[in-house]
């Protein structure tokens, strides 16, 4: 299946911060250091693809966009591998890239289709693992999460789904820790209301 072509600007359109551009950094760090970073990025990305896709899906609510986001993220990461700090978590770095591509490049042009990330189709495209019906409860939870505003949904995902601490989530989102906590509180309040008003299929917790 073909995916819409990416509209990622080439490196040249996007000046890197001083001293951190590919050429400058490469020159400064030397070829062996550069190769080391490139290798870490090249080897670090494949194990992350599924998780990146999931993050893209949580953000965009659409599986094609999620795929596109992963592709754009990998491309950007490979191009900017000199900016990766060896020894740090490549997952956080890649998440940050994906998020910035979403915020700056894809979100604005994406009209939400309303299919959402728990459409049965999602289950069926999963490389043949189309057995989501054993997973109704999980799907129901995802449906509820999807109804949350983006900020709350993302906080719920990062903290409860990815296991980040409030601090780590805050750093990734570039917001104060207290804001992460209030988004979680708001999300919980909204989900409680869903439960209270019978607008759900979940048994009581």
């Amino acid at each position, binding site marked *: 299946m073909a995916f819409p072509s990416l509209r990622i600007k080439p490196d040249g359109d996007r000046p890197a911060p001083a001293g951190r551009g590919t050429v400058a950094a490469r020159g400064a760090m030397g070829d062996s250091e550069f190769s080391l970073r490139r290798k870490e990025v*090249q*080897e670090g*990305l*494949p*194990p992350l*693809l*599924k*998780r990146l*896709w*999931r993050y893209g*899906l*949580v953000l965009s609510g659409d599986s094609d966009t999620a*795929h596109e986001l*992963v*592709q754009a993220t*990998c*491309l950007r990461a490979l191009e900017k591998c000199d900016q990766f700090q060896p020894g740090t978590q490549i997952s956080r770095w890649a998440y940050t890239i994906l998020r910035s591509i979403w915020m700056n490049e894809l979100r604005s042009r994406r009209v939400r289709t309303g299919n959402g*990330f728990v459409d049965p189709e*999602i289950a069926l*495209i*999963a*490389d043949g*693992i189309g*057995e*989501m019906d*054993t*997973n*109704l*409860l*999980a*799907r129901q*939870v*995802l449906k*509820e*999460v999807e109804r949350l505003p983006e900020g709350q949904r993302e906080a*719920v*995902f990062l*903290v*409860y*789904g990815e*296991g*980040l*601490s*409030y601090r780590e989530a805050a750093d990734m989102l570039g917001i104060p820790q207290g804001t992460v*906590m*209030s988004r*979680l*509180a*708001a999300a*919980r*309040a*909204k*989900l*409680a*209301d869903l*439960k*209270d008003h019978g607008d759900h299929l*979940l*048994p009581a*917790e």
Partner: protein
Amino acid sequence: MAPADHSDLSDETLVAFIDEALSPTERRRTADALSRNAEARARLERLRRGGRPFGEAFDALLQAAPEHRLHAMFADLMAKRGETATVGFGGNVAPMRRRARSGGSSAWQMAAAAAVVALAFAGGLQTAGYFGTARQIAEQKPGWREAASRYVALFSKETLEGMPRDQQARQANLQRAAQVLGLPLSDERIANPALDFQGTQILQLDGKPLAQISYLFDGRTPVALCIIRTANAPQTAQIEERHGLNIVHWVKGGYGFMVIGDIPGPELERISRTFRAQFS
């Protein structure tokens, strides 16, 4: 003289309280203040009602990721850049270890957790044949300890509670594992004074049977003894960590053994010593 008035019982604090993200002192102080503040207790209750088994739900989403398509895309990307993908399809990453944050355990959380695990089983726990293909495991080739630990990392106490409890079924599963491995597995041999036996599963890794014998440590922490046939030379016990779990592994008499669990290394080492003696 009303400390409650000075305590922070904001929704944010209450969320941190539910998520067990407060320091012991803050937690005590909050619990104290809550005991004197009915309004805050009501808010706490509401925020709790907003809890869901988020982790399990997001795990299910991970299972639904189009893995092959993503890897094909990456390989394509590398090829276009004139590079070769140096890592193959070894990337079925287990979720990061999560703190228990989705609220108290309950039947539906167990169901959701079980459902996620069920994706890894072709059959299901109760089927007679019960030869789970653990497809995510089988399609990867990252080494058996990596594959098995990734799988075991998904286990919780609740997962094990879904296993057959009656003696006959347990025996039958154990003996089936013994048969496919060609390794005698008696009750005595798999018993461990530190562990409470929960059941046996047979998984398949690259067409090779892998027995996973599950236990609970301290009544709540899953521990597994995994056994696979191997052509590798004997190897003394070694300790390693994968996916946040401690592992003691060794090779003996044509079998690879691995004891794995989220318990301290020295404790696990003691546990493995018993097994090593029983399988010597």
